[in-house]
Every structure is written in structure tokens, then in C-alpha cells.
């Protein structure tokens, strides 16, 4: 079930909210929790009942293992460590089988000529996310950072539908204590209003911006190997993909945060104006923040972090980013994307050390640093967006002008527009295609202005600026619950309903 679908908005969400708050009136909070768990399982099972079984099995095994680790942690630390390692390995193994079996066997087949026939493996929805949550639970239990949770609390934490499919990655210690607060079971108009505001902003970002802007990039990348893009198409495709991906994923995060907020539950923010970052280190503090924290805490630090010397630190950082790339997708393009970011981070850390050692070194001004960061991030997105290495290289060649300024098709359209005006273009493309293209370009322009000038969703709804020292901007946009803001939210909601028919899945669903 998608957040941006009619069945979710018009049926699932109202029923789940109503049942939750009705049952929340009981003295015992468990029926409301059980209701929420049932709703979350239905939400997942809507996609596949078979893989709902896998999710349930995974939760049962991890919960049992976690309980055992917790029980022996003090008396037999060696056994606790062994059990934790076994659990992590089993989780990684399960993820590897479902996510990487085809990738691995394809590569082995390419090297050896052996066919392992792994093509039928289906990637279970959300497996990347619920595996990470449970690995963190096992590690935390072994390190004494987890309480003894009931099975109901544990399963609700893993499956709570706002974060289940595509994050944010919310940890047990962030979520379960909130389920135990009696306040969330009482209907709180302020929380529901803020949730609606988050959700409505997310819907508009997804349907009004991400989908049409993303559609500008798709043909450039999909056809790049066969029809290499010129300078204009390559840059347009890359900028459109960068903008589309940001609005797509941050929209999902906004919706997830908003949905949780309707139930009185607070999720951590997941985006914080990432394209305003002034360095790559800064970028990773702002982009998919919950994943960055996970990689830092459970991969980078677990490998030794910066505790074993500079060389080891660099190796750990690069390994973490390569794994982060591989987590996003089973393909060499994702590995290269992760590797590029690893290399960027090494350069960034090296530059910082050099600047510390030589205070006289000239500093980049903030706009230059921001522009440079954005440029290298976009170059890396080319690998993320391209279906294969050949397409990525063709787009990069286009961006450097190696494929000429324009593709022949675009040149024909431009020439027709210059000679015969819009009518001549309509004769080639059809009126609807021209209108859609122009509209998408205008939305792309507007989206760029929003990225660089407008406040974040959390700044609008919660008043949280991107940086603590930053003064609040655009006070007129600050959400305050009253009739007029309700009109705006309702209008956004109705607009989204009107655009929902041609529904597109969120990009991050495939990860």
C-alpha cells in the first residue's frame, strides 16, 4: 500500500486512526497497540502475504535472540557476543540472499560461465529497513542499551507502518518508550494537526514536484547508452534527477513523520536542506540523516572508527560508504556511487586537517563551497540514476560536452520552435507532450527556488531551522493550526487526490 494511494488515504488511515483513539480510551493500552500492530501488518500484507510471513519470522527470531542475549549479557559476555554476531550474520545473510543473490551470481557467472539460476529471487519490500532496525536492536541489547521489551512492543516497533517501508530508520529506544506513554493514546488535536501539515506537504512534494520533475530525467538516463545525451540534455537530466530524488525521498520522510505524528509519535527528521551543504561531511549530516547515523554507529564505529590510526580510519570510512552504496542497490553503479562519496569524504577530511595545520590557508567562501559540494554530489547521482555503467559514462560524457551540445532530436525541436513557433513543435511532439514538458520545466525551476530559498518542512511545521544559528525565515509560511491554514492543507490534500490517479511508487521503495 502506498501512502499516496486512495485506499491508504480514504480508507486505511481514517480507520486506523479512529480505531486507535477509540481503543486508546480504554484503561489498558494494549488493545490500541494491538490494533496498530494489526493495521501495520495489513499495510505490509497488502503487498504480499508470503513475505509478511518472512517479516514475522524475522521478528520472532530476532526477538528471541535479543531476549537470550539480554539474559546472558552480564553472566556470560562471550556467549552474548557470539549470539549477537550470529544474529547480525543471519540478518545480513537474509538480506544478502534476497537483495544480492542475483547480483552475486550474475557476476560469478560472468567470471566463470556458471549459471546459478537465481533470477527468480524477489526482493521483499522493506527488507533493507527492517533488517537494519533489528541488527541495531541486537547490537544495542548486547551493549546494554536495550530494555526488556514485550513481544507486542517489539513487533509494533519494527512494523509501525509510517516507517516500515522506507524509513526513517527509527531505533527501538526512540520508538518503544513513546508507545508506553499514555498521552499518545489520547486524541491530541495539536499533534494530529501537525501530522496533517507534514503529510499534506509531503503529498504535494511528491505529486506536484517529484513525479513530473523525475519524469524529465528518466528518458535521459534510460536511453543514455543508446542515444548519448548532449550537454543540455545531460545537465537537464542530472539536475532533474537530483531535484526529483530529493523531493521524492524527503516527501516520503515528511509523510512518514506526519503519519507518526497523527498517532502522537515523534520520528527523527530525515532531511535538513542537504543541497545547502557547504561540504560533503555537511551533506551527510543533512541527507538521509537516520541512515547516516546508522552507518556511523553500527558500521563505521563497529569497524574501529577513528580509533586505530589515520590509515585505518580512512579504510573504515571508505568501507562504510561502499557498504552504504551497496545497501541502496545491488549493482556496480551503486558501489561506484558509494565509493565516490567515500573518496569525497576522504578529500574533505584531508582538507580539514590541512586547514587546521595551516591556519593561513585560503578558505572557500560559503557560496563557492556550497556550489562545489552540489556539483560533486550531482556527479555521483549520475551513477545512482543510471541503469548501468555505460549509461552513466554516456551521461558524464554529455555533461562534459563530449557528445555535442544537443541530441539531434532536441536540435530539430529547437529549430522548429525558432522557425515555426510552438505550433511547429506541437506538430512534431503533439500538444500534450509539449504542455507536459513545459510544465515540468517550470516546476523544476520552481523546485530549485524552493530548495535554495524556502524553509524546510520541519521549519514550516515545527519551527526548526536547518542550522541552530540560522534565524527563522519566511514567518508567513510557519504553520499554525487555524481555519486559514486548514484551507491551505485541505486544498493541498484535494489537489493531491486529483493527481493521485497516475500514482508512482517512491524511489526509495526499491532499496
Amino acid at each position, binding site marked *: 500500500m502506498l501512502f499516496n494511494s486512495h485506499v491508504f488515504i480514504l480508507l486505511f488511515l481514517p480507520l486506523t486512526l479512529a480505531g486507535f483513539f477509540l481503543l486508546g480510551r480504554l484503561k489498558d493500552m494494549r488493545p490500541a497497540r494491538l490494533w496498530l500492530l494489526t493495521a501495520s501488518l495489513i499495510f505490509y500484507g497488502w503487498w504480499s502475504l508470503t513475505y509478511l510471513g518472512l517479516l514475522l519470522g524475522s521478528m520472532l527470531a530476532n526477538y528471541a535472540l535479543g531476549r537470550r542475549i539480554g539474559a546472558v549479557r552480564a553472566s556470560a559476555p562471550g556467549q552474548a557476543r557470539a549470539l549477537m554476531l550470529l544474529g547480525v550474520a543471519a540478518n545480513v545473510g537474509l538480506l544478502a540472499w534476497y537483495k544480492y543473490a542475483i547480483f552475486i551470481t550474475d557476476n560469478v557467472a560472468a567470471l566463470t560461465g556458471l549459471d546459478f539460476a537465481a533470477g527468480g529471487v524477489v526482493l521483499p519490500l522493506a527488507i533493507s529497513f527492517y533488517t537494519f532496525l533489528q541488527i541495531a536492536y541486537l547490537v544495542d541489547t548486547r551493549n546494554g542499551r536495550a530494555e526488556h521489551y514485550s513481544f507486542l512492543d517489539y513487533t509494533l516497533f519494527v512494523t509501525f507502518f509510517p516507517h516500515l517501508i522506507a524509513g526513517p530508520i527509527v531505533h527501538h529506544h526512540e520508538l518503544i518508550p513513546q508507545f508506553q506513554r499514555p*498521552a499518545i493514546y489520547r486524541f491530541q488535536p*495539536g499533534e494530529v494537526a*501537525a501530522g496533517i501539515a507534514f503529510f499534506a506537504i509531503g503529498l504535494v512534494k511528491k505529486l506536484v514536484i517529484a513525479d513530473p520533475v523525475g519524469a524529465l530525467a528518466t528518458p535521459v538516463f534510460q536511453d543514455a547508452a543508446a542515444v548519448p545525451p548532449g550537454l543540455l540534455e545531460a545537465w537537464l537530466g542530472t539536475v532533474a534527477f537530483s531535484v526529483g530524488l530529493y523531493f521524492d525521498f524527503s516527501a516520503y520522510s515528511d509523510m512518514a513523520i506526519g503519519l507518526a505524528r497523527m498517532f502522537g509519535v515523534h520520528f527523527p527528521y530525515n532531511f535538513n536542506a542537504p543541497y545547502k551543504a557547504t561540504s560533503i561531511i555537511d551533506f551527510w549530516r543533512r541527507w538521509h540523516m537516520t541512515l547516516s547515523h546508522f552507518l556511523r554507529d553500527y558500521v563505521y564505529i563497529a569497524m574501529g572508527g577513528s580509533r586505530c590510526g589515520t590509515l585505518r580510519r580512512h579504510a573504515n570510512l571508505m568501507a562504510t560508504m561502499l557498504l552504504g552504496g551497496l545497501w541502496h542497490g545491488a549493482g556496480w553503479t551503486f558501489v561506484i556511487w558509494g565509493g565516490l562519496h567515500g573518496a569525497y569524504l576522504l578529500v574533505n577530511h584531508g582538507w580539514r586537517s590541512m586547514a587546521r595545520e595551516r591556519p593561513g590557508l585560503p578558505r572557500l567562501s560559503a557560496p563557492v563551497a556550497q556550489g562545489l559540494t552540489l556539483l560533486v554530489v550531482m556527479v555521483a547521482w549520475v551513477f545512482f540514476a543510471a541503469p548501468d555503467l555505460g549509461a552513466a559514462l554516456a551521461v558524464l560524457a554529455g555533461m562534459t560536452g563530449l557528445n555535442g551540445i544537443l541530441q539531434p532530436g532536441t536540435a530539430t525541436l529547437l529549430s522548429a520552435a525558432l522557425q515555426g513557433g510552438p505550433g511547429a513543435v506541437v506538430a512534431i511532439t503533439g500538444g500534450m507532450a509539449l504542455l507536459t514538458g513545459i510544465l515540468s520545466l517550470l516546476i523544476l525551476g520552481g523546485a530549485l527556488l524552493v530548495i535554495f530559498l524556502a524553509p524546510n518542512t520541519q521549519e514550516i511545521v515545527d519551527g526548526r531551522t536547518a542550522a541552530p544559528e540560522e534565524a527563522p525565515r519566511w514567518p508567513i509560511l510557519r504553520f499554525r*493550526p487555524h*481555519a486559514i491554514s*486548514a484551507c491551505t492543507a485541505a486544498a493541498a490534500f484535494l489537489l493531491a487526490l*486529483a493527481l493521485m490517479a497516475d500514482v508512482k511508487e517512491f524511489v526509495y521503495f526499491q532499496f
Partner: protein
Amino acid sequence: MSDQHSSLHKGTKPASPAVRRACAGAGFLGRLLPKQPAACFLAAFLLLVLGGIGATIAAHVALARAALLPPPPLAATWCIDEKFAFLREMPLERFTLIAIGSSATWRNLDMSVLEQRLHGTRAINAAPCYLHIDQTAYMAGFLLERMPRVDTVLAVVAPRDFEACPASQRAFFDPHLAGAYLGGRVPAWLPYVTGFRPIYLAREAIEQENLPPGPDAVALDGHGSSILRKPHSWRPAPVFDPSCYEGLATLEETVTSRGARLVVSSLPVMPEWSERFDPDGSLVESWTREMRATLRQPETLFLDGRSLAWGDERFADPVHLLYPHHSPFTDFIARAMAGQAGS
């Protein structure tokens, strides 16, 4: 988290003067709403959303009463949606022969001729319009799952069916919703909710006055065929996408994997179109050769429409025959099918 939680209770504070003014500023609505700001927000939001949904329902009802409502938008294309609405009313499990494809199939077959020539056959023309051959394969797979007695699948093809077959456009409707709709497991109004597109609805309502074409423009046979009665000036230039032959292969595989046989017939060539776009006939020859090479199953029957050397007067346009010339064309197909069955 503590900072986030600090905003938790903002909705329960007494309304500030500015907020009270904002609520009051909403006029009549403001007087109806609760004075507590967050409750005021929620009440107004709910009222407006329900009002918007109510207005949309009212607009649909009004259009339906004025006979301007297009069929349930499963594909948001009138002639496809109309075919789904037709199929919903049919006892699909009883048919033994379906015709499927683009308008080359929809507008060129006389299903009663097939039933007469092929004894015991119950035939239905399930073809909508606009489909390329890979989309035909997609729809054939969908329908065959619901039509267990079908033993023959018939497709009439023209070069236009092989114009473009991008994978991204293949699944042109949601099979789950369409399956539930055809099976009567969801109400007929549900696709209006899930497929709500205001611009499409408005455009179709404006055009609905001319749709469906009247009896002077088309002849309906009650089996799903719709034959043109008037000539058209449409002369599409031939464009071929090589990937469409994979679509034809998929169609054959889909049909044979369900124990049915595939019959593919190309249309006769309109002389005027041929003189303009294919004077030496090499394009159609090459297309026919490719199709023959693609179809590999021994039970598949391919019929070359060029064996009917008809004049322009029999054609509405290069893709559609004029009424009643669809009957001899169908007879040509039926005889060949009967001959194959007899041999």
C-alpha cells in the same frame, strides 16, 4: 527528542488573539468551528476535504444524469474503458474464441461469421483500440486468466500495431483493479475514485456528446465489434519498432501456454496508402516476413491479408475496412481456421 516534544502541546494552548482573529476571519466557517486552534484546524480541514469529495461526487452524478460521464476510467482512454465496461457485462467464462488487439481487430471482424463457420464456437471481440502488439499480449494474458474455455485467440494486425513497444507503456491498466471490476468484486464506481483525473473527466464530458459514434458512423454487432461506415482521411506513415516482434512472440507464448491456439491475420493493404508509403511493397513484405519468422508454434495460424487484393472503396482508412466489407474479410479468416481445424 525533547525539543520536538516541546511542540507537542502547542495545539492545546488557549488560542492567541491572532489565531482567534484568523478563525473568526474565516467568516461563517469560523463561527461554526471550535475556538481551540488545533481543533478549529481539524474541524475546518475535515469539513473542507469532505466538502471537496462531496462536490466531486456531485459532479460525477450530474455528469451521469446528463449522460456525459465517460466509462469507469481503468485506462483513462474512452475506447478501452468502454470495452472493459462491455466485458464486465459479459459471461466471460462461456466464450471459446476471443478477438484481441488494436482497432484493427475491433473494427474489422464480424463475430457472427466466425460463429457460423466454426461450429460450437462462442466468439467475443474483446479488442479495444490503440494497443500496440505488446499491449495486446498483456491484455490477452489478463483476459485468458478469466476465460478458461477459450481455445482460439484471434488478432488482426496492421503495421500500426508495430509502431512502438516501450516496456514502460506495456502494463496500460492495473490488472488487480480491472480483474476485480470485471469479476464484479468491486462496485462499478470504484474506478472513478482510483482513476479520478479532473482534466480527463472534463475533456471527456465535453467530447462525450459525440461519443459513442451514432449508428450512421459505426455498425455494432453485439459481440464487441464496431465497424466504420464512413471513410476517413487518416493515412498513418509506416513506422516499425523492432522490439514489437518480441511483443508478438510474447502474445504467442501467452496464448499457447494456456492451451489455446493463436490466429494472426494481417489486413489487406489499401492501394492508396501503399502507393504513397510503400510503392514497391517492400515494407509490408519485410513486416510480414518478420512476423512469420517470429511465430514459431506449429498450431499458430498466420494469414496474409495481401491475398485479398481489394480496392480503396473497401477501406475507411488503411487500418479499417468499411462496412460491410468486414464480413468477407472475417469469412476469409474463418475459412482458413476451419481448414486448419479440418486438416
